[in-house]
Every structure is written in C-alpha cells, then in structure tokens.
C-alpha cells in the first residue's frame, strides 16, 4: 500500500495544490490595486507630409512627424505580481473618413527591476505616424495618451491610461519632402 509510487503521487498532488492555492492568493492580493499614475506629454515639432505609403496601399497618405517630451515615473506601479509593463504612447483622432483612429507611435518594455522612470526630451517616435488617408493635414485635435499593459506573474492583463493627455494640431500645409 505504501509503495514509492503512491508516496510520490501524494507528495506531487499536495505540492501542486499548494502551488495553485498560492498562485490564486497572489492573483487576489493584487486584483484591486489602482495602477493609474500621472504622465506629462508635450509635442515639440509637428509637421505633416504627403508621401506614398509603399507599406500599405501605395497611395499618397499623410505622414506625421512629431517629436515629444515624455515624463512619467512608473516605478510605484511594480509589485510582486507585475512581471513587466508594456508602455505605449498612442495618438487618437477623428478624420472625415474614419470616426476613430488609434496609432501607436512609441512603446517600451519595462521589466521588473529595470529603470521605470521615463524622462525623454525631444524624442523621435519609434513607429511611423501614417494616417489611413489624408486626415492629418490641418487636423486640430490629435490626442496623445500614454498607456500601459500590466503583464502579471499570474492574473489579469489590464490596460491603464495615464492621467494627463496632450492634444495638438497639425499645420494646414504640407512640408515638402526633400528628395
């Protein structure tokens, strides 16, 4: 009755249930935490060009060029159930053809233990700011929002917007691209 196999089975089953229970408690302990915090965003240079988008439909689409100042201290967000933050800056705007456009312009992976105090001056974007058409020229209301996706050790994958957005407008004329 008390063979090696039955003992090993009992130990493994008990260890598994303890692990499952601890994981669940870890998930519960961080379920109701408010992960919002403040961020300050500012745009320095905003120009718009009309360029053929060879990645997409090859038509002349609006391409925005902006540089931003970005400041946010995300280190208080980390706790024992935050493995990584996926931080992203996105632009949200309306055009004549689309009721909603969201374009991620910049992102950064911050793992636990890495420096989470973001402070960028006059930063270039990581991704191209292509519009789906010609809706950037003269657009008066483009909102930049910093947001983060919390990657836990085990639990919910929540998305949180920073407190503090920034709105800007693009000029009414295209900047002619130098060939």
């Amino acid at each position, binding site marked *: 009755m008390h063979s090696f196999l039955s003992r090993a089975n009992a130990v493994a089953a008990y260890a598994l249930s303890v692990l499952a229970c601890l*994981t669940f408690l870890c998930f519960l302990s961080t379920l109701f935490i408010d992960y919002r915090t403040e961020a300050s965003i500012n745009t320095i240079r905003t120009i718009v060009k009309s360029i053929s988008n060879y990645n997409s439909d090859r038509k002349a689409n609006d391409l925005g060029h902006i540089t931003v100042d970005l400041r946010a201290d995300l280190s208080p967000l980390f706790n024992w159930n935050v493995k990584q933050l996926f931080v992203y800056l996105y632009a949200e705007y309306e055009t004549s053809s689309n009721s*909603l456009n969201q*374009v*991620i312009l910049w992102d950064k992976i911050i793992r636990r233990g890495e420096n989470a105090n973001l402070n960028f001056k006059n930063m270039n974007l990581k991704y191209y700011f292509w519009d789906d058409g010609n809706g950037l020229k003269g657009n008066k209301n483009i909102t930049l929002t910093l947001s983060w*996706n919390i*990657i836990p050790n085990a639990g919910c994958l929540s*998305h949180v917007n920073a407190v503090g957005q920034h709105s800007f407008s693009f000029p009414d004329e295209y900047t002619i691209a130098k060939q």
Partner: protein
Amino acid sequence: MIQGTIEEIKRMNKRQFIYQVLSFGMIVSSALMLWKGLMVITGSESPIVVVLSGSMEPAFHRGDLLFLTNNKEEPIRAGEIVVFKVQGRDIPIVHRVLKLHEKKNGTTKFLTKGDNNSVDDRGLYAPGQQWLTKDDVVGRAQGFLPYIGLVTIYMNEYPKVKYAILACLGIYVLLHRE
C-alpha cells in the same frame, strides 16, 4: 502489474464494471461541459490558448496559458493583445494591435505586431492582405497563467506520451474503488 489489473477486472462483478464505466463517462462529459460553458460565457471559439511562439517575449513565453474573451459589444482598441487566425495558417497568432482605424459605419480594420518582432505583421498575413478585421479575431487576451501549457506542448510533440498518460488515467479511473 498487468496480471494484477486483469485479476482486478475479473474480481469485479458486472454492476460494478458498469458503474466504473459510467463514472468515467461523467468525468469526460463534465470536462466537455466546462469547455463549452466557457465558450458561451466568453464568446470565443477557444477561450483558453497556449502560447506557441516567442514573438511576444518577454511578456509571454512558449507554454504560457492565455484566457480569452470575445464579446462583440466590447470594441478592440490599440494596445490590446488579440489572438487571430490568418487564412492558410492553422495555428492562431497572439500579437498586439499597433494601429486601428474605425469607419463611420462601425467597421474596423487593424494592424498587429509582436512585441519581440521588429516589424509589423503584414508579412504574416495572407498574400495581399493589409489589415485584419473583427472576423479574423478568435479572442482578446484577458488573463495570464505561466507554464501550464507546457504539458500540452509536450503531448503534441511526443504523441506516445499523450497516449500513455491517457491510458494510465483511463485504467486508474476504471479500476479505482472507494
């Protein structure tokens, strides 16, 4: 050991054997009910998926488990992690929405990218496909559990292990007596 199990079966009478078979059926059907119930609640055709590639590292590694929902009312937004199917590929892909454009009539199109990839997913889509739409989406990742999916990855890579485990479980359930 085999001789022991054969003797065990011989010692059982008919009623007991039927009882064991029925309880085995109960286990199988309750697992099926759980899965189908989850499908109804989450609205997703596969509410739990295993991450199979490293394209979302360091967030998701191979073998991590994701819980999906696919409610039609809740719209997809940029930054969310979606699981989608591409025509001509059997395995669904787990990637993040990079750009999203919603037309006035409510139709959306979006472009995805893996966190660990340097370029967007246009190269992964079907030839000529520029954007994904809601119909391509299997679900949106809402919950995360590490490592558990490694079991199924091993089972799929070594089918003999799978059959051995299934056989052991079946024999155990059939012969187990209170």
